[in-house]
């Protein structure tokens, strides 16, 4: 489904990587590893269409994925190394904007309760259901990370999940919950690409080592 051909990137005038090639089929997973500064986050941002690749191609079902960044954005969910959590909003309000993309969740009345149910469901998936009404400024670093990961549970329709150090600061139980979320996503035919230094619960994932 997703194919990278000879991707290369410069950052600050320095070549961070070149000749990145991989193929991912439906249900596949890829771990990006390598020392600090080897370009894992840069590669994820290129795959998300946020940063341009210097050379090379990214293909989705054999068509150029980055030709239309908006439709590419619609088929992916991205969890960066920052949590994108607003301290002034409550835990569930932090997910409101991400939830507008959930199918059948716009508008008022019945559809609105559909959106709220999707948010509650996403919070339960990362074990934050009990904290839904707490202002996010009271969350610990690990809980903020889980709130960022809850966006994935809202975007189960997005086939491509891009994760940058998803388990940073997570406890053992939360890593297991993330593992279950990723497993379910892959069983439904989704792709997972994660940059990480820590072992991730991704059975049978390929590994791409950046130098």
């Amino acid at each position, binding site marked *: 489904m997703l194919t990278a051909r000879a991707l290369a990137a410069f950052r600050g005038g320095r070549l961070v990587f070149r000749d990145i090639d991989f193929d991912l089929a439906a249900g596949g997973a890829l771990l990006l590893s390598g020392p600090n500064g080897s370009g894992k986050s840069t590669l994820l941002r290129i795959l998300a269409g946020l940063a341009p690749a210097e050379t090379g191609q990214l293909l989705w079902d054999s068509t150029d994925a980055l030709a239309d960044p*908006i439709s590419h954005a619609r088929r992916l969910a991205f969890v*960066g*190394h*920052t949590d994108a959590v607003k301290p002034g*909003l409550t835990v569930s309000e932090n997910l*409101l*904007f991400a939830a507008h*993309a959930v199918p059948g969740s716009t*508008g008022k009345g019945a559809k609105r309760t559909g959106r709220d149910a999707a948010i509650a469901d996403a919070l339960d998936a990362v074990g934050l259901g009990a904290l839904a009404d707490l202002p996010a400024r009271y969350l610990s670093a690990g809980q903020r990370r889980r709130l960022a990961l809850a966006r994935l549970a809202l975007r189960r329709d997005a086939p491509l999940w891009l994760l940058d150090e998803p388990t940073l600061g997570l406890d053992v139980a939360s890593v297991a919950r993330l593992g279950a979320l990723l497993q379910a996503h892959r069983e439904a035919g989704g792709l997972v690409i994660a940059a990480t230094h820590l072992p991730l619960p991704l059975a049978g994932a390929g590994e791409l080592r950046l130098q």
Partner: protein
Amino acid sequence: MSGFAALVGRELRLSLRQLADTLAAVLFFFVAGTLFPLAIGPAPEVLGRMAPGIVWVCALLAALLPLERLFGADFDDGSLDQLLLSGLPASAVAAGKALAHWLVTGVPLLAASVPLGLMLRMPEPAFGALVAGLLPGTALLSLLGTAASAVVLGARRGAVLLPVLVLPLSVPVLIFGAAAADAASVGLSARPNLLLLTAYLAAALPLCPLAAGAALRGAAA
């Protein structure tokens, strides 16, 4: 369209939670306006003559205040990536930000301009032209400010660059806006100045979000 509405809703919700930041612009507007009588004396004929200009300069400076954090906060905490990946074009993200800035800064300034004008003994006939000018004027300031704050995003000393970029672009707004109120206060028609202001708005409405969207894409890369 639902994405755009969700974005504007998110921005309004955020400003409501940071009410102190939101009200800071209006408070600054009042405080700056009240400094003028203290500095130039309370003589009604002098103050009244200067009132439209004072209100406009204060509105311009007050609208600058929240611009630095307009994209800065989202850029720092990673929310900007989420906005750019939300399925909206970058220019629509910028347009949503501009609309939200206008609703939480421009509209309160519009409302506050009347009491400030009264305090400065602005001639009665000028009030209509002042508000009619501030309506497109504050919208223009939001659009120009959004474009400029997207351009300086990620730059060092962005806070210093921002007024340097916005103020020259705002000069026509200030000239036509203040001239409209001035003309009305001496019994002339404010219409030509208001039409020029609206023409500027018609050009900025499509161009500023496009420029801001391109700048946002560049900053995220």
